[in-house]
């Protein structure tokens, strides 16, 4: 039975003179290495150059603020439920008087942590979020020296007012339409007649 067509007949024939003095073979080998002198190196000088990545690349998360700068997250826990890697944990708190500018709704996430070592960057949290609060961005997660440093709290996740992050690439009309689908869990729990991203009165 023939498994592959790579079988070779082995023979013990004497070496020819050209093979015995090895010089032709050596020159051939040197020609091969010399030809590589003129080939382009595929190396990317990492910190200075980066690989081109897709505009919808799923990298480090961001917790968005709304246009007035209030945090959108209401600590509903949909993302934590949706997360297949169980990387997200949060603690909710009630908004006090005078904090209206900080948090958009009466409830907010006092603690919001994502374990970046657990996260598989699948984007299900973003899909599950009814408040358009969490998004994956095209940023890469930094390297750290300690395991504990990979648990990102709100200090790293919440968008800074001075450097807003554009996630419009991930909010195409198709995506917004998809989120209204009745089959999705958050649409069953919340009133699906309300417009998404507009904020919901309790």
């Amino acid at each position: 039975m023939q498994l592959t067509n790579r079988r070779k007949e082995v023979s013990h024939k004497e070496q020819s003179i050209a093979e015995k003095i090895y010089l032709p073979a050596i020159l051939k080998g040197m020609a091969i290495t010399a030809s590589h002198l003129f080939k382009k190196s595929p190396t990317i000088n990492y910190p200075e150059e980066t690989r081109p990545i897709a505009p919808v690349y799923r990298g480090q998360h961001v917790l968005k603020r709304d246009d007035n700068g209030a945090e959108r997250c209401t600590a509903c826990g949909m993302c934590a439920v949706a997360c297949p890697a169980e990387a997200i944990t949060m603690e909710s708190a009630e908004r006090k008087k005078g904090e209206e500018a900080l948090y958009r709704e009466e409830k907010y996430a006092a603690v919001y942590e994502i374990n970046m070592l657990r996260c598989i960057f699948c984007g299900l949290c973003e899909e599950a979020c009814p408040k358009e609060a969490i998004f994956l961005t095209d940023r890469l997660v930094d390297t750290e020296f300690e395991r504990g440093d990979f648990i990102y709290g709100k200090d790293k996740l919440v968008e800074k007012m001075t450097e807003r992050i554009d996630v419009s690439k991930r909010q195409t009309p198709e995506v917004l339409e998809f989120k209204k689908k009745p089959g999705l869990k958050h649409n069953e729990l919340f009133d699906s007649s309300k417009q998404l991203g507009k904020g919901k009165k309790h």
Partner: protein
Amino acid sequence: MTVFLIYKAILCVLIFAVSLGVAAYATWWERKFAALLQDRKGPNRAGPLGLFQPLADGGKMFMKEEIIPNVSNKFLFILGPSLFLFLSFLTGVLIPWGKDFTYDGHALALQLTDINVGLLYILGVTSIAVYGIIIGGWASNNKYSLLGAVRASSQMISYEIAMGISIIALVITAGGTLSFREILDTQDAGLANICYQPLGFLIFFICALAETNRAPFDLAECETELVGGYHTEYSAFKLGAFMFGEYINMFVSSAIMAGLYFGGYNFPFAKEFYHMIGLEDGSAWISLIGAGVYLIKTFIFISVFMWIRWTLPRFRYDQLMNLGWRVLIPLSLLNLAITVLVEIFIRGTIQL
């Protein structure tokens, strides 16, 4: 006399500095060239194109912990690398880098000294260089070091024979002189010696690879079998001295090959060229251009050494000895016989 002494002192320092600089930058070029052959980038962090890499490497070598094993013979342990480095500098003394020039009525040579048994001196010094290795390997009191040293010395001794015989053939073609400078000058008027001695050059080249312990003859330090070979126990600058010595050896033997077989500072139509740009005989510019040409030839040979290193796999030890004793020595004897016959019957330079 004072002019002569000051000139020699300057030249001495200059050649010392150039040898050190070339050896340092040979390490950089080795890494860069290997990277180019393997489609990599090579060192490119320290300075533009990684040009400060040798400085960083040297700094590292100085800063490392200096370990002298308890069981080693301390005097010999230190003597080994010192001797190796010292002897590698000694071979560079004879190389004539350019033509003589006149300054203030004094004829000055771009060469430290010319002795009439120059080639014998070079062969002698390169064969003493094996002492540095064998003393270092022996004093380490380590099996691997000793094996590496034994390998290195037996290899150097066996290839020296073929090298010596191919040099005899060269000396016969060059008219019976052993002086380095005179051999270079015979190539000024006529063809370079490679045209008369192609086989001799091939033998000399292979032997030079073996003498400098370069791949594919680097059995003395093959890490898969011998950890580090004769410098297993060495650290910090003593290790650096061994490595430096190797690169200087490579530089010097490249220069010797470029000189003996490829005309050194001579190049085709040199006289016409100098005449065309209006330089008179004895001008220092002629010496400088010659030195530049010589350095370029040397650089090409160093690159070929590296090219071979990054192409060919290492020999097995019995293959190495077979090649030395059963191929190269008979071949060099054949080359000698052919040379003598050609000199007697065709060129007629030897009268019977």
